[in-house]
């Protein structure tokens, strides 16, 4: 596995067909990301960061070129296979946390386990992960709307981690947090990286990007520095 990267974008182009004309969001991008790397993706607005994250999170497929994750060609997969890979291999952390409002903090974390094992979690894994991000039982019973931004992001991290994914995709994870809480979250991500996770981070903030070991700079859908 060490000679083949965990993620390989090979000449990936993504074109959005809009009424105003075609927009090339990614233009012949080729990037390799290795296992246990900590990579920051940076670039101005409209440079293609989000499109790249959507590709890495298998929420979208390339217009041309190939994306390989764990050696598998994403474009050749069925919808269901992509869904399962998203569930099992990738942990997604969003700027807006995106917790399920109807579920408690605990249930939000338990949810991916239910998706995977088709049953409620009896292993205590969800509770253990929540504990590791500083949530006790009482706090875990709260709905997202009853939690602060930092707390919600910690629940989101716990949810992303609960199925033990190899890749953590973090889309502006500190964007909606105050500076202090933002750095606490970044410390958590750095800790997860040191435990062996591959962390890919999209950010505007150079201070946040400093946590990463490598920065991929995008401009107009092209990689200008890697």
């Amino acid at each position: 596995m060490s000679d083949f990267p965990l993620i390989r974008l090979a000449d990936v182009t993504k074109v959005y067909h809009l009424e105003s004309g075609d927009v090339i969001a990614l233009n012949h991008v080729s990037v390799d990301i290795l296992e246990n790397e900590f990579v920051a993706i940076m670039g101005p607005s409209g440079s293609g960061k989000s499109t790249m994250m959507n590709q890495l999170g298998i929420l979208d497929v390339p217009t041309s070129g190939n994306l390989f994750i764990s050696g598998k060609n994403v474009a050749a997969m069925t919808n269901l296979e992509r869904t399962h890979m998203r569930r099992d291999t990738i942990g997604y952390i969003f700027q807006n946390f995106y917790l399920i409002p109807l579920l408690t903090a605990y249930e939000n974390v338990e949810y991916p386990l239910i998706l995977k094992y088709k049953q409620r979690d009896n292993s205590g894994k969800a509770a253990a992960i929540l504990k590791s991000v500083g949530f006790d039982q009482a706090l875990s019973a709260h709905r997202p709307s009853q939690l602060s931004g930092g707390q919600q992001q910690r629940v989101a991290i716990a949810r992303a981690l609960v199925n033990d994914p190899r890749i953590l995709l973090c889309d502006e994870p500190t964007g909606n947090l105050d500076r202090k809480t933002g750095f606490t979250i970044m410390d958590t991500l750095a800790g997860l990286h040191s435990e062996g996770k591959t962390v890919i981070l999209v950010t505007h903030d150079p201070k946040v990007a400093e946590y990463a070991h490598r920065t991929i700079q995008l401009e107009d859908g092209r990689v200008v520095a890697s």
Partner: protein
Amino acid sequence: MKDIFFDLSVRSVRLNFLRSLLASIGIVIGVVAIASMGMLGTNMQLIVKNQLTAGINTIVITPDVVRSEPGSFGTQGTTATGITESQLKDIRDAAGTNEVIPIDRTSTQFSIGSSDGRGSIMGFDQNDMKNIMNVSEGSTPRGESDAIVGAMIASRFDLKIGTRIKIGEPNISVTRPVVRVVGILPTIGMSSSNGINTDNAIIVSDTWYSAQFGGANVYDQVNVNLKDVSTLSAVETAIDNKVNRNKEVIRISDASSRVTSVSSTLSSLTTFILAIGSISLLVAATSIFNVMMMSVSERVQEIGILLSIGTETGEVRRMFLYEAFILGIIGAIIGGIMSIVIGYSVVSAMIGNTAYFFLPESIIYVPAGMLIGIVVCVASGVYPAWKASNMDPIEALRAE
């Protein structure tokens, strides 16, 4: 195992409780309409059928006037207009232990005081009268010129026990025979399936009848009252074989064909009123559809989250179908309870008889209506659920 998608649906319904309840009211109305209309129709059918089958155990035998023409001479000459004593004996033999009632009947004019009328006059054996006539007032005839009268004549002419009736045409200048009313019969109405409708009749003894109208030992009709209705066709065949062995001289009929035709008419009527009830379910389906579409559009971002963290499209679909199912269940349960109450009131008010209400064939409309309500509800949720599960997760996540 408790399904988390079911759980999510329950919570969504709870969160939007008022909206969900209002949507369910559509289903409630639909279930109530279907169930109570169905029960109304069925109760009507059961009551009418029961009234008709009250006389189904009677075989009515009449002379075959088409084949044995009056006035024709020959071996059957005297039987031309009636059933003879020997034929009656054959009928009695074939009927076995069943009751055989010979009847004389004709149409006549009569006068009561200064008013004139027209009706049937029937002659019965006095013992038969005792057995089959249940007077509501007075008694059955004992004397030669005693008569009992039908409810319609009694009420039209305001007859009392003891009133005298002159029989025959009023303009003939001869002394008309007189009978005295000793009993009044109850209203028979539709339930007279035994071939004797006594509502507009004056009933006298056969001896008085033959003295006035002639035809002693010849009868216009013979009724056979069966002890066991299942022997109907066997007895009919036996009589036919015995009496009609050489020539068709009598006609044998019963009420079963009438029961079948009336039942089928009523069954069409039930279907028709059920169809009217179904229209309300159509309205309910539209309202459920609307609520489900609202639920989907309000939860676009949530659907995006679910899809982006690895929820299968089938699971998202299931979640929304569960929601429709829950709305259906709520509507069906409330509707089921209400349809028993409303159905009972409707049947009681419109038919005036609730004796059949709790019979399986009537009460079955409650679970049937509930089931149809749930099915309609889930069916209305299919498109919204499909729409939710086929969203583009990226677009859905961006929605506010």
